[in-house]
């Protein structure tokens, strides 16, 4: 059987079998007992030629939803990806290499990751960042486990305004531990975590997200005071790194560990994956950081180079005593994000972030004028490019009608927060124009 992915001609096979000294490829599988074999070929269709393959997947893609007009983020953001980003990250020397175990022929990846760590450290206001984790949800889980190692305490206080899916992943990671205790902090009436009555006690960490799942900017400095007074760490997450273009960084407000999702930084949404798990921390916790770290090194001639370092934290050296089991991370996502950050620059990123905020505030005021109301009474919280409003009667039906025209006008919060039956999460980015928003507002009112 010939296939474009196999270079073997019948003559090649014959010659190679002759060298090995067997008559047939199947003879090489003699060590597999008959009782262990599949009785028939796996039921996978094909083989398809490249053109047919394209047709088939183009058919699926046509109904995968990428053509919808979506007015929300909720952990997956639609941002413009400059053409240079995939053009550079797609270079096959980057794409088709493995984890850089041989540093002399991996300096491209290694320097890029070293730069990535530096840019993420600066973004989050903390001195050390790792080379990436899988996604924001697993970054939360790893950050929580890290806080338990650092403090020797087990209890966690988690804001219920941390992304609900991320909290589910944390619960999955903690399930086998009979001593794990997670106390959920309820949302206050204004859409901010009710921080006053936390009772941090003997907790390892207080964990919040800012902007939180409702888009609201938490009082991180106050959370830091509360956590630190009780000897706990403050962990601050984010699902929209663009917010840090115009807001104070977690580190500058007292966070000990920051965790987040970096998909906004040049990665397509791709139905939610792959993303980019981010983790940064205070310097003194460096030997408890999970995942790869790239460090600067000198070669034999004193020349600057980069290597994977502090491997004694990791599974391939420490096995069951490792700080985490992670091996493969999100390296190419990190490279892609680094290219995006380099292209944006501090100045460009700040302007982009401001544009996001301006458009979101424009949508928010339009919706308020259309009969939507703030979540709580009193002063509305500061938000970035996502926010929650209560909808007027009849909006659910209007939302369903818009779905029929491939417009997703917000996310109902009731499946995640049953008490908030009329609350909806909205978001916009720089990919929506004023005209797009005006059009949506007309539709919502119609």
């Amino acid at each position, binding site marked *: 059987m010939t296939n474009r*992915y196999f270079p073997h001609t019948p003559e090649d096979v014959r010659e190679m079998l002759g*060298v*090995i000294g067997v008559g047939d490829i199947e003879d*090489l599988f*003699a060590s597999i007992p008959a009782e*262990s074999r599949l009785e028939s*070929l*796996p039921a996978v*269709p*094909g*083989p*398809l030629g*490249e053109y047919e393959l394209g047709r088939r997947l*183009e058919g699926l*893609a046509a109904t*995968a939803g990428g053509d919808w007009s*979506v007015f*929300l983020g909720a*952990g997956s953001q639609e941002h413009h990806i*400059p053409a240079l980003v995939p053009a*550079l990250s797609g270079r*096959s020397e980057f*794409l*088709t290499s*493995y984890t850089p*175990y041989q540093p*002399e022929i991996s300096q491209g990846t290694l320097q890029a990751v*070293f*730069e990535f760590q530096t840019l993420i*450290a600066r973004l989050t206001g903390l001195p050390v960042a790792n080379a990436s984790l899988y996604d924001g949800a*697993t970054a939360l889980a790893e950050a929580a486990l890290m806080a338990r190692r650092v403090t020797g305490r087990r209890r966690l206080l988690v804001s219920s305004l941390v992304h609900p*899916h991320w909290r589910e992943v944390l619960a*999955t*990671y903690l399930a086998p531990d009979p001593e794990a205790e997670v106390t959920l902090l309820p949302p206050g009436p204004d859409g901010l975590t009710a921080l006053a009555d936390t009772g941090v006690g003997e907790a390892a960490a207080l964990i919040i997200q800012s902007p939180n799942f409702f888009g609201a900017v938490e009082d991180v400095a106050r959370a830091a005071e509360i956590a630190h007074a009780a000897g706990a760490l403050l962990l601050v997450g984010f699902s929209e790194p663009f917010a840090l273009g*115009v*807001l104070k960084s977690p580190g500058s407000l007292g966070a000990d560990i920051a965790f987040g999702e970096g998909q906004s930084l040049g990665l*397509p*949404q791709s*139905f*939610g994956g792959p*993303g980019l798990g981010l983790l940064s921390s205070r310097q003194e916790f*460096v030997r408890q950081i999970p995942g790869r*770290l790239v460090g600067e*090194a000198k070669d*034999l001639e004193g020349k600057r*180079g980069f290597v994977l370092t502090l491997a004694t934290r990791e*599974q391939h050296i420490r*096995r*069951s005593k*490792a700080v*985490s089991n*992670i*091996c493969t991370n*999100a*390296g190419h996502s990190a490279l892609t994000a680094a290219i995006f950050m380099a292209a944006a620059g501090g100045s*460009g*990123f700040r302007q982009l972030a401001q544009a996001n905020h301006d458009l979101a505030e*424009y949508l928010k005021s339009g919706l308020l004028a259309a009969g939507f109301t703030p979540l709580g009474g009193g002063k509305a919280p*500061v938000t970035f490019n996502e926010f929650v409003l209560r909808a007027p009667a009849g909006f659910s039906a209007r939302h369903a009608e818009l*779905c029929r025209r491939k417009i997703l006008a917000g996310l109902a919060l009731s499946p995640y927060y049953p008490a908030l039956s009329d609350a909806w999460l909205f978001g916009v980015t720089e990919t929506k124009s004023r005209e797009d928003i005006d059009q949506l507002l007309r539709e919502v009112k119609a």
Partner: protein
Amino acid sequence: MNQDQGESRPATRWLSEPLLWERGRKGRSGLSVPTTGVPVAPIPAGAAGEGPDWPDLGELEVVRHYTRLSTWNFGVDSGMYPLGSCTMKYNPKINERLAGLPGFSGAHPLLPETAAAGALQLIYELEQWLAAIVGLAAASLQPAAGAHGELCGMLMIAKYHRERGGTRRKVLVPDSAHGTNPASAAMCGFSEVKVPLGADGRLDPKVVAGLLDSETAGIMITNPNTLGLFESSLPEISRLVHAAGGLVYADGANLNAIMGRVDMTRMGVDVMHINLHKSMSTPHGGGGPGSGPVAAGKTLEPYLPGPRVGYQDGRYFWRRDLPHSIGRLHAFHGQFAVAVRAYSYLLALGGEGIKDASGYAVLNANYLKEKLKAAYDLPYDETCMHECVLTNAKQRGDKIATLDIAKRLIDLGYHPPTIYFPLVVESAIMSEPTESEAKEDLDAVVETMRQIASEAKSNPDLLHAAPVTTKVRRLDETSAARKPKLTGDM
């Protein structure tokens, strides 16, 4: 080092490239900021920050920076990459195009299920195909990488025992296992019981039987194992483990040897992970993202992560009513864009082609082994699966370390094999050529390896000094770890 070696590095290719913040000028940007046409909405003073202090570069500066960096890297597209246990096969170009189709890449993960029917169908079908390829009942695409799949499988085993009121805390792990196995077990609260290999490099059922007791939660087995040998006694071992009340986890890192050939159900496997970035041709990206779907037999299928995709009456939907599921392991639905590539790869092969891929992978590994065993020590001289393990034993007398052989290979144009793993073989050289390599390319690497073996005798300093043709020479990893400099600001 002599002058000649220094000059063998072509100056243009190895031009140094400053770090990002060593170039650029404030006020430049490599991307355009749209004019919104809406009023500026200032951030309230209490919350407003300065934004990150990233360097400002122009578009061409960024392009040249990363283009230069890419020339210092070696990928499968650059040359043979026989990194054992990593299955560095060809990553088909068509898969990149298809993963980037706007319908997929622009899909928001929280779209209504009817809006994303094509995405759900792809997940559903790929899960079915993966389960069929290994002979198990069902699969989940949620785990994001191989180690994440291991964690998933061990969480499933832990939950299975919890539901039965058990306090089983021990997991058997063979000496030859990847380090991720004991680390994944430890994350689930299990303690590791090491299983020594038998004299033939395989697990001995009698040894396993002696380690089983009422505390045993299960066993983690890599099959074929990291010596490239098939664990022929797995059915018997599974029967013993099951009889003791434990469950069987199979590490699928080496699946490329046995795709479409082995029935994990008949071997007694309860759960396993599959690395899409190994066997299923998706690119490794210099460290990820990968994807580590988990497949389960009937016993553990109810414990798979959720939500899962269901299909009925021509409609795909999310199944959330999963009372035994371990729950969610990924923010959304797993590494979807990686899954698209694997789906495309499997369709390009078809059922028979999948089996053929393993056939050619095993053929290539055995050919390489036969051609190299005169020049290099082969501790287990028998038919191997997709990879073979050699050592430097014949070169040790000339004070040549495995590392020296690996670094000399770099100078001669190849990515080295995996070295110093598996740990059960001293100074291992573990080669996995994959089915992608043509006979002439294997012959060429064999010639190169033989040349190195002869250089080890005639000119050992050449090996000790290697590599000399690269951007940097050997790096001082010890000093780098002693006083780590992890960012440009340290």
